[in-house]
Every structure is written in structure tokens, then in C-alpha cells.
């Protein structure tokens, strides 16, 4: 049961008769009592005439997923199964981060036996699953004095996917990828290259790439003197494996700039996956801290990105230390072939990177490893500001942080891996560029 503002106004209006009739105290008290009884009686009648909020059928019409930042319409169909007209306010039980537009109080007027649609616009403010369990219906009587209220089960789930802002960088990288593919195929054989074609020698080609056997086969029998030299060409190998390991441990919870490290890692992983799947490579994703939080394996094409964002959507950083010792086995379970292993983690202090450094040799022995980490762009400004004593100490601390990061990066390089470190906005394109470099050099 609930009261309305109209009811308290009705009670307050009793001032008028009490003042008008109440020259004598006894009459005034009697008037007061009478008015209160009248208000109670009206409220009771109103309550008795209100439709039951329980005899309502609820259907929910909700898209299952959307990207963070998009707006989606959530629809409820309320069917009045009772015999009285349902004049109600409806509140849907979305949490605040579901980003309901407006007050989340919808007025509906449903005649008996009919149904009405209630629309809400949602713009979620956070990644992950947004869940609503129930709706609350407050059914008013015809006078709008008292109301009946019930909460009805109406489960709904909306999966909010990572936004993939970094796809803005994708067209330019795809252009470079196409240039890479269409470019004169490389003439030097490398580890990540495959045979492309035989063609005639033109001046300027590396003489070491002349294929003598092919030249002999192509010898023109009619003019034996005019043998054409054939050159064997190679192109970057397709169908390479890329394993992206995203560290979801406590260091991923650190917020740099506007977003936690984990979200930046997701952006970088998505851009890399989009680029690599266009280049014909096979991408697998692992989310790891002490256990496997998520895995995308064997997907390709458009399905890959969809499954990646779906896996990433409800994985948040856990406040536990990462168990790097388990990572080589995880990578092995994904592929037994040589692969490009991208570790998206925080390689910024010797203490927290010890686990990573201890397993890197196992990974670099079999794979090409790139360690990508987000750096804090504010350190740069802090280092060069030396106005006051506090600034100097802050500069010293920032310098220390950078030196720590440099030390870890040097150790990582010494163990045979390469590093990519950039600010939150720059890391995804930087990682994509590193991939393109490796691909162009045939080093995948």
C-alpha cells in the first residue's frame, strides 16, 4: 500500500472547514475528526477500487547485447488480467549503471483485458551484464489517493560489450596491410614467409633469389639463347597463429587516464584481432589471472570479434596476484605451433613483474612474444615540473617509476621478447603497428 501526495493534500485541506466551523474548540475538534474520517473513508474506497497489481502479465522485449555507449530501447508489455482498469506507475528494477533515461517511473493506463507497452531508453555506463530481476507496479485508485503496490518477477539481462573505440584506427592499418600484401613480394626467405610465385627477373631484383631450376625448365626450346631468368618470390605467411593473453589480475584494475588498464588491454586486443583476422591469421584470446577467466578459440572472421567482445564483457579485474606459471600451459593448449604471443599486462615494477619474467624464457623458446603494457602519460609532465619542493619530490618519484618500467622492459628484451609501451589512447594502434612490422618483416 502507498499514499499519494494528493492524499496528504486532502488531509491538509481539512484546515478550511476546521477554521470556518471552528470558532468553538469542541466544534473544531469534531470537524477535525470528521474530516480525518472522511479522508480515511475516501482513501479506503479508492484502495478498494484500485486494480490488483498482481494480476498483471509481464513480457519483456529487450535486445540481448549492445556496445558500451550505445542506447537501446527496453520494452515491457503489461497485460491487465484483472477486471478493473489498471492505472499504475511502473518502475523497472535496473541498477543505476544501466543508465535509464529519465526517472524510471512510467505511467500506464490499461483497461481490463488489454495490454500496453512501456518503453525505457537505456544507455549503460559500464561494461558487463546489467540485470533486472523484477518490476514494481503501483496501482492507483480512480481518485488517486491510495495505491496498491506489488513487485513482480520479470527477469531481464542486457550484456554490455566493450566499446572498441580503437576501431577508428582500423581503416588506416588495413590500408597498410593491403600495401603489405600487394607490395612486391619479398625476395628473401624468412621464418614467417611462404612461397608466393615465380616470375621473370627484372633488373634490380636480388640475384640471390634467382631460381635456377625454374629457369632451366622455362628455357624456350625455339630460341635456346634467350633463356629467361626466373625469380622465386616469397610473401608473408598467412594462417599464422596469434595468441592474445590478457592479464586480469590486480594490476589490471589500476586506472590510467580515464579507464582501467584492463579496458585498454581489451581495446588493444580487439584492434589486433580485427587486423590479424583481415590478414588471414588465426587469433585466440585468453583472459587469465590465477585461472582462465575466458577463452576464445577457433573463431574466425566476423564471429571472432563477436565472441571476443562477448567473452570480455563481464570479466573485470580481480584483486589477486597473477599466476604466470600457468600461462605456458594455457598457450600450449591453444596451439602447438609457433605463434605470436601477445601478453597484455602491466610490466612497470620489478616486484610485480617477477612472475612474468620467470616464465618468459619458456614462451620465447617456442614463440615470438610481445609484452604490451599501458604507461601513465602523466609521468612525463610530473618529471619535468620542478617549481616547488613538493614538485621536486613528485618528479623524483615519477622518475623512479619510469626507471622501474625501463628496467623491466630491458629485462623483458633480454629474455628475447619485445615490448610495446604507450599511453591508454596510443597502446592499441602501437600494438597494431608492431604486428604490422613483424608481419612485414616476415617474423611471425
Amino acid at each position, binding site marked *: 500500500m502507498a*499514499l499519494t501526495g494528493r492524499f496528504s493534500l486532502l488531509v491538509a485541506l481539512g484546515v478550511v472547514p476546521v477554521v470556518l466551523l*471552528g470558532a468553538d*474548540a469542541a466544534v473544531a475538534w469534531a470537524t477535525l475528526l470528521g*474530516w480525518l474520517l472522511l479522508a480515511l473513508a475516501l482513501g479506503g474506497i479508492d484502495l478498494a477500487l484500485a486494480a490488483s497489481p498482481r494480476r498483471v502479465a509481464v513480457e519483456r522485449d529487450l535486445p540481448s547485447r549492445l556496445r558500451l555507449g550505445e542506447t537501446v530501447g527496453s520494452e515491457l508489455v503489461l497485460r491487465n488480467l484483472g477486471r478493473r482498469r489498471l492505472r499504475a506507475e511502473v*518502475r523497472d528494477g535496473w541498477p543505476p549503471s544501466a543508465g535509464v533515461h529519465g526517472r524510471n517511473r512510467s505511467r500506464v493506463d490499461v483497461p481490463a483485458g488489454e495490454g500496453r507497452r512501456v518503453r525505457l531508453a537505456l544507455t549503460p555506463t559500464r561494461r558487463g551484464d546489467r540485470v533486472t530481476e523484477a518490476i514494481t507496479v503501483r496501482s492507483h485508485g480512480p481518485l488517486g489517493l491510495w495505491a496498491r503496490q506489488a513487485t513482480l518477477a520479470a527477469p531481464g539481462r542486457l550484456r554490455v560489450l566493450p566499446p572498441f573505440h580503437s576501431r577508428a584506427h582500423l581503416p588506416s592499418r588495413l590500408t597498410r596491410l593491403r600495401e603489405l600484401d600487394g607490395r612486391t613480394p619479398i625476395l628473401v626467405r624468412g621464418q614467417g614467409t611462404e612461397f608466393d610465385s615465380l616470375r621473370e627477373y627484372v633488373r634490380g631484383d636480388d640475384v640471390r633469389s634467382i631460381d635456377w631450376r625454374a629457369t632451366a625448365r622455362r628455357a624456350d626450346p625455339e630460341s635456346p639463347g634467350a633463356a629467361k631468368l626466373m625469380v622465386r618470390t616469397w610473401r608473408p605467411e598467412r594462417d599464422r597463429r596469434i595468441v592474445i593473453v590478457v592479464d586480469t589480475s590486480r594490476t589490471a584494475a589500476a586506472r590510467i587516464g580515464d579507464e582501467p588498464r584492463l579496458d585498454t588491454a581489451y581495446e588493444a586486443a580487439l584492434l589486433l584481432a580485427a587486423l590479424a583476422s583481415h590478414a588471414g591469421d588465426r587469433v585466440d584470446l585468453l583472459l587469465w589471472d590465477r585461472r582462465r577467466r575466458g577463452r576464445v578459440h577457433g573463431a574466425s572472421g566476423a564471429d571472432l570479434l563477436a565472441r571476443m567482445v562477448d567473452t570480455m564483457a563481464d570479466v573485470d579485474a580481480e584483486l589477486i596476484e597473477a599466476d604466470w606459471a600457468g600461462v605456458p600451459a594455457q598457450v600450449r593448449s591453444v596451439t602447438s605451433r609457433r605463434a605470436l604471443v601477445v601478453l597484455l599486462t602491466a610490466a612497470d615494477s620489478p616486484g610485480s613483474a617477477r612472475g612474468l619474467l620467470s616464465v618468459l624464457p619458456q614462451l620465447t623458446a617456442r614463440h615470438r612474444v610481445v609484452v604490451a603494457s599501458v604507461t601513465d602519460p602523466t609521468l612525463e609532465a610530473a618529471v619535468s615540473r620542478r617549481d616547488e619542493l613538493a614538485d*621536486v*619530490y*613528485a618528479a623524483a*618519484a615519477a622518475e623512479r617509476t619510469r626507471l622501474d618500467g625501463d628496467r623491466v622492459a630491458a629485462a623483458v628484451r633480454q629474455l628475447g621478447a619485445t615490448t610495446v609501451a604507450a599511453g591508454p589512447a596510443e597502446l592499441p594502434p602501437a600494438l597494431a603497428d608492431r604486428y604490422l612490422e613483424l608481419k612485414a618483416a616476415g617474423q611471425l
Partner: protein
Amino acid sequence: MSAVREDHALPSSPESGSEPARAARAVSPGVRASLRRGRTWIVVAVALLAGALVLVALQGAIRAPGPPLAADDPAPGGAQALARVLADRGVEVRQVRSLDAALAEARRGATVFVHDGLGVLDRARIGELAAVADAIVVARPDFASLEVLAPGVRLAGAVDGAPGAAGCAVPAADRAGTLSDGQRLLTIDDDAAASGFTGCFPSGDGFAVVAGTAPDGAEVVLVGATTPFANESIDEAGNAALAVGLLGARDEVVWYLPGPGDADAAEAPTLAELTPGWVSPVLVLLVVATIAAGIWRGRRFGPLVVEDLPVHVPASETGEGRARLYARSSARLRAIDQIRIGTIRRLSAVLRLPRSADVDAVVVSAAQATGQPAASVRALLVDAVPQDDRELVRLARDLDGLERAVHAAIAPDPSLDATDPTGRRT
């Protein structure tokens, strides 16, 4: 029979019919369910209420408490016992609450018993009473009544334990012999003693009972405390004998307990008379309306929704914490060394020195590039130890200045670049 079948048909029709809609399961309990759920508390509340009612009934406190020492009050502070005993002895006891009634009775020659616990009567009214009454017994007299009835008799506080034996010429006191604990004392000064006031039941300088003749001629007995008259203590020691002796001397007793109408301000209009009758009801009405509005605003629209917030820690906090640690422990050398290491690394990169180049090489090339003496560059980069905060800040700034100087010396003149877009130097 058909009605029964209809009853069965009604609820089953939405399930058996083509209509798929079925009422959603309610999560919140209905009225019946809430009653069932809150049964324990409702029972407890009812039991408490009933217990309180029984307790009140047993204590006899259901009637409104009357004034203290009322003749018809059986409570511990009342005086019904005394009034009944007096009535049994043929003394007519009439309780009055107004001065006019008391005056009328007093004119007929009745003993006037006065207990003005709230100090309602002023001097003039006591004087009026004293003028017409022949005998006045005052229980626990206040300052005003002492001044009018017995000038020279003063209040002297309470006494520990019982006062001494009567020892005076008042017959009632003499018969009583002793009094119970809890008496209050009065003193008699010389003037009063000269005008005939005598004290009974002495304790130190004071007396629990003082008798004499008022200036207006009335016989006055002043009893310091109410204990000799009250129900709870009248049966102790000689209390009853004193009370019955004082009040049973004549056939009639006027039991005068001054009411609110006898107050000095009685003629002035009360607040209730000044304001119109609707003021209090309107106040009550507004309180009710406010409560209704509170319920309106306070009724929650459905259950609370859980929002699970992820933990995000600003990454710069470790750096800030480290800076504060440096500052708190005044680790100047350590702080400046961090800046120096960073500066040397950047300088060696700018000066195109190999990564393995040692500090001396950096010092030499930096000095060459900027034209500063090598000793001062070395002091800045390696040797100088900051002794106080001022020096620390100066060193840090000088390091920054050195870095800029090296940059400026190494980089091509930007003004040339600006004037010549091809970058050629003429």
C-alpha cells in the same frame, strides 16, 4: 451445482484457454503474507500492550492524579485515610478548590486545613482567609503564608531522622508524643515568641510544628511537612494522633487545596481564551498531513537494486605515495639521485652516446655541447649533495636547465627551419 462448476471454471480459464498470458509471479508479499510473516512481532506487540494495560490497572493509576493531600485520594500522596477517620469521628470534611468556597465555610466556623503545594495563593488571599477563619492548620507552609499568618516564623529545612518529643502546650501534639521521619523544620525568632508562637517537636533550633495566634486573631497551627497527613505515612509514630487532634477539634473541616482559579493571574485571560478554538485542531491536522506526506515520500518503490561496482585504483597513487614518503623522511639525496639517473639517461640518448657510456662520458659531452665547465656539470650531475630543501629545489631546476641547454645546443636552430621550408642552411 452449476454455480460450483462456474467457480471452478473461472480461475482455470486463462490456463486452459488459448490466452497464453499468465500473471507474473509476485515477489513482494501480499497483505496476508506480510501478516503471516510479521505474526511474531504482532503477537509480541499485542502482548506488550496488554501487559502495560494490566500493570496500569493494577497500580490504580488509571484515574488522573489529583492534587497532593486530596481528601478523596487513596494514592500514597493523598489524604483519604485521614478524611475517613475524621468522618468516622463525626467531623464533617468538605474539600474545596476555590477561595470563595473556603471563605464561605470558614465564616461558618469550620477548621480550615490549607495545603498550597504549588504556591498558588498570594499574600492578599491568605490574609483574606486569615481574617475570616477561626482556626487554620497549614501543612507545609510556604514563605508567603508564613509572612502573613506567623510573622517571625521561618523555614529551616528538613531534619534527619525523627524530631524530639512534643514538649509543648498544644494538646494534639502532646497526645501524639513523637512524629515519624521526614519532618521539615520552622524556626521562631524572638518577636514571634513574644507574640505567642510556640514550637513542638524540637530538633536543633527548629520545630516540626509551630502553634500560635495570627495577627488577625485566628488560631494557627503550622505543620512543617505533609507526612503527618499523607496516606503513606500517617500510621507511623504519632502522626495520626497529631493530624486527628489538630483537625478533629471542631465539627467541620474545610479541606482547602487552592486550585488554579485562585492564582494571582486568574483574572487574566488564558492562552486558550485568547486564541480561536480551531488553532489546536489545525495544528493536529497539519501534523497528520505531514505524517501522510512523509509516508507518501518515504514509501519505497520496490526493493533496492544491487549495483556491483568494480574496483579501480588510480595508478598514479603509488607514485604520489612514494613522493610523500620521500618528502616525509626528507630523503633529499635519494630524490635528487632519481632525477639525476633519469637526466643522465636522457642526456646520453640526446648526445648520441652508446647505452653503455658511463657518467664521465656524459659529463664531458654535455659540457662540450653547452660550453659549461666540466667540473660544474659533474657537480650538478654527480657530486653535489643537497643540504636543505632550498638547495634540493635549486639542483632539480639546474638539472632541468642543463637538459634544456643540451637540447638547444644539439637541435638545429628552429628559426632557420621556420624561414626556410626546405631546411637548407644558407
